[in-house]
């Protein structure tokens, strides 16, 4: 996208100084509206049990699933609750999935004195062949077996299964279905080229400084200092920058103050303080030139449970002075020029990755969209706020761009739905590792990765 337009004047700056160089105005922001109100928590009370989330989730998704089941298996099938099951009768049941995993880290096992177990080290994947699937609804639960992929599914998914109850009390599944893509949103995209830059995992505060030059190059390119005139004019079409989490690196997480004695740590500052200052400076450079949305991530100074609340603006004093800076929640939803964006900083996807046999982040991203829920594992293995009125992670409308941050590498796919939905799925790679960011073209929903690099001692190009 960039290059074709820029190519003609590529070598333009290899010349003696010319007359007053042109300045390009940034494309104005039109039609931005923040839709992430469901993810913003006001008064928080943690006195409720998490069972309410599951109840609300099931109640919220049941109608859609029943409709889906009818359309798939015939409108005359029997929809039963678990308590109404009769042995041998073919029926359809809607419920929440629970996967009993032996390797799942369980706090009860850890503190169990009888076993004298050493706490389990974190594994990349916790799946095992002996895992079992159990379907739960409001009152009962039943074990599932049959034509259902145990390894692939995770706890917390709402699905409809079609089959019959066996003599031994298990449910033999013949077919199952998910909520599928939610209803589509009308398309109001821009008619001219307009870009949104997605980047995640800036990883500031890490010990190694290799990515710092790349970060600076990224900022320079977006603010229009880098590149020849053609490229700068293209960069002027970047309407927005979304930073999807992990602005600080994992190194800033170490908290010596807990482990070491007070007299050793008295004069030391938390590593995140320096990192936040650096982040503030970088954001200031960006904010003076382009609207920026900052989402918190796993290692950022905000709450741990999903939905993560926006970073507090007192941490970013220099950049907060500009109206172009927007601090937003972790699952983030917004309308940009008529295009609906929805995305997370990647915690939900990486959690599903740990508990499912699916390996590809893009595949998992697509699967969450088909399952109709952003983060099914939320209260079980991923921290979550105890919602009780409604589950904001249920997908009610189909976004146009669905992204997740901090993926191992860049992937993108345009998904077409049966009802005319068009979704661009983007896995935004971790910038500190790959020095790659993504540029999404709002006009035609295409995505291009941009890589930045300096040169190191081992001079490779």
């Amino acid at each position, binding site marked *: 996208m*960039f*290059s*074709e337009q*820029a*190519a003609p*004047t*590529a*070598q*333009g*700056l*290899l*010349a*003696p*100084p*010319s007359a*007053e*160089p*042109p*300045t*390009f105005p*940034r494309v104005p*922001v039109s039609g931005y509206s923040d839709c992430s109100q469901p993810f913003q928590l006001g008064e928080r009370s943690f006195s409720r049990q998490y069972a309410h989330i599951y109840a609300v989730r099931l109640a919220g998704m049941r109608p859609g699933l029943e409709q889906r089941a009818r359309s798939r298996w015939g409108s005359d099938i029997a929809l039963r609750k678990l308590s109404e099951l009769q042995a041998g009768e073919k029926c359809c049941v809607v419920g929440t999935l629970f996967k009993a995993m032996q390797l799942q880290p369980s706090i009860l096992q850890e503190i169990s004195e009888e076993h004298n177990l050493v706490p389990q080290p974190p594994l990349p994947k916790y799946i095992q062949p002996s895992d079992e699937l159990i379907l739960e609804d409001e009152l009962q639960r039943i074990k599932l077996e049959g034509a259902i992929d145990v390894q692939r599914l995770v706890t917390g998914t709402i699905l409809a299964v079609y089959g019959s109850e066996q003599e031994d009390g298990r449910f033999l599944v013949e077919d199952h279905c998910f909520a599928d893509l939610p209803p589509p949103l009308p398309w109001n995209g821009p008619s001219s080229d307009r870009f949104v830059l997605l980047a995640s995992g800036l990883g500031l505060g890490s010990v190694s*400084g290799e990515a710092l*030059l790349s970060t*600076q190059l990224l900022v320079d*390119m977006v*603010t*229009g*200092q880098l*590149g*020849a*005139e*053609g*490229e*700068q*004019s293209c*960069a*002027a079409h970047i309407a927005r920058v979304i930073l999807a989490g992990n602005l600080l690196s994992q190194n800033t997480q170490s908290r010596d103050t807990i482990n070491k004695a007070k007299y050793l740590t008295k004069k030391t500052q938390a590593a995140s303080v320096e990192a936040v200052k650096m982040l503030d*400076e970088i954001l200031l*450079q960006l904010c*003076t*030139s*382009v609207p920026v949305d900052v989402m918190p991530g796993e290692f950022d100074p905000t709450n741990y449970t999903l939905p993560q609340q926006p970073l507090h603006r007192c941490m970013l004093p220099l950049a907060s*002075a*500009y*109206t*172009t800076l927007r601090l937003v929640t972790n699952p983030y939803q917004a309308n940009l020029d008529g295009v609906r964006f929805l995305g997370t900083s990647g915690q939900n996807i990486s959690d599903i990755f740990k508990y499912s046999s699916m390996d590809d982040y893009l595949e998992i991203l697509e699967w969450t969209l088909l399952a109709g829920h952003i983060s099914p594992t939320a209260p079980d293995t991923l921290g979550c706020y105890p919602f009780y009125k409604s589950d904001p992670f249920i997908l009610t409308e189909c976004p146009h761009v669905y992204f997740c941050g901090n993926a191992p590498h860049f992937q993108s796919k345009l998904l077409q739905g049966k009802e005319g939905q068009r979704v661009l799925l983007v896995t935004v790679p971790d910038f500190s590792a790959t020095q*790659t960011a993504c*540029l999404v073209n709002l006009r035609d929903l295409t995505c*291009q*990765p*941009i*890589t*930045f*690099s*300096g*040169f*190191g001692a081992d*001079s490779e*190009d």
Partner: protein
Amino acid sequence: VTYKWLSYTLGVHVNQAKQMLYEYVERKRKENSGAQLHVTYLVAGNLLQNGHVCHKVAVVREDKLEALKSKLSTIASVHVYSIQKALLKDSSPLYNTDYDIVKTNLQHCSKFSAICCAAAVPRTPPDAPRAPASARSPQRQRDPDAAGAVNGHGPPAAKPPPQQHKGIMGMFAAKAAAKPQDTHKEAKAEAKEAPGVSAASSKPPTKNNIMNNFFGKAAMNKLKVNSVPEQPKEEKEVVKPSAAVAEPDSSPNTVAEKAGKKTESARIQQKDKKSKTKRADRSDDEEERDPENVKKKRKRIKQLQSDSSDEEDVPPSPTPEEERAPSPAPVPALKAELEPASTEGSAGGRKRKRKRVLKSKMFIDEEEGCMGKTG
């Protein structure tokens, strides 16, 4: 020397800086082929990678330039990134140069860029209500004389005495301003000020209270009337910044009287935190002092408060108060909303009884104040 550094240092557009660098390189190379200039270039373009077209932006050394250019399918831009004398091993010096120059110019980092964004306007600072409060504290700490101006806000009847005590009030009022408002705040502020400035600085606030108490008790109609409405004002407008105005009004009155009572202020300051009644008692004690003490203490204050520019005002101002001093009422000034004059008589008697006791205490206080004086 990177293009960004040049751009900021010379104040030119980034593109011009890049062109300047190029021209410099060309010229130097033509002139003196022995010159060892190492140039790095920025190359950007499309690259076919992993099956999809990836846009690559890279900083490369001159020797790698052509190799990278051939790798790219389309070249979007090439320009000089930096020039240096020595061969760079890695790109960290480039980053450091840019980092430093940007840091020194953080507020104008988009000035020389090729893109200007109309939407990027700084927000208006939100804390207008806090301005008076912050204005008050600097006023308190740095500009005691400004309190003199505040005195004008006092009730008209109180004008003559406050104006007389302008100097002292100026010294004390600003500091004492916050005291009746918020004992905690003031205690803290005074605690800060006391070690920071001097014992003298802590005295004015306490003296303020003492003065308030004194006025509450005193049978001076004028001052009383003035102080009484001021005291309720003080008490009511504790948190409002405007209270700062009210307090200097009363405080100047009291301050002038308490001009000589510096030693007690230290002790009284602590007691102020505890209870106002105690403060009243202390103020009683202080008020009991003989005019001589007052005079002497005033002198001490003068010496201690070298920063006060109103020293000449000190001696004349307390004298009128001294005359009014003899009939104080033992009611805590801060708490006494409406002190009837009748209490003065009884208070006077009480005062006299206390006088003897207090004198010894005053001895102690004075000794503590390191200005040993036979009461």
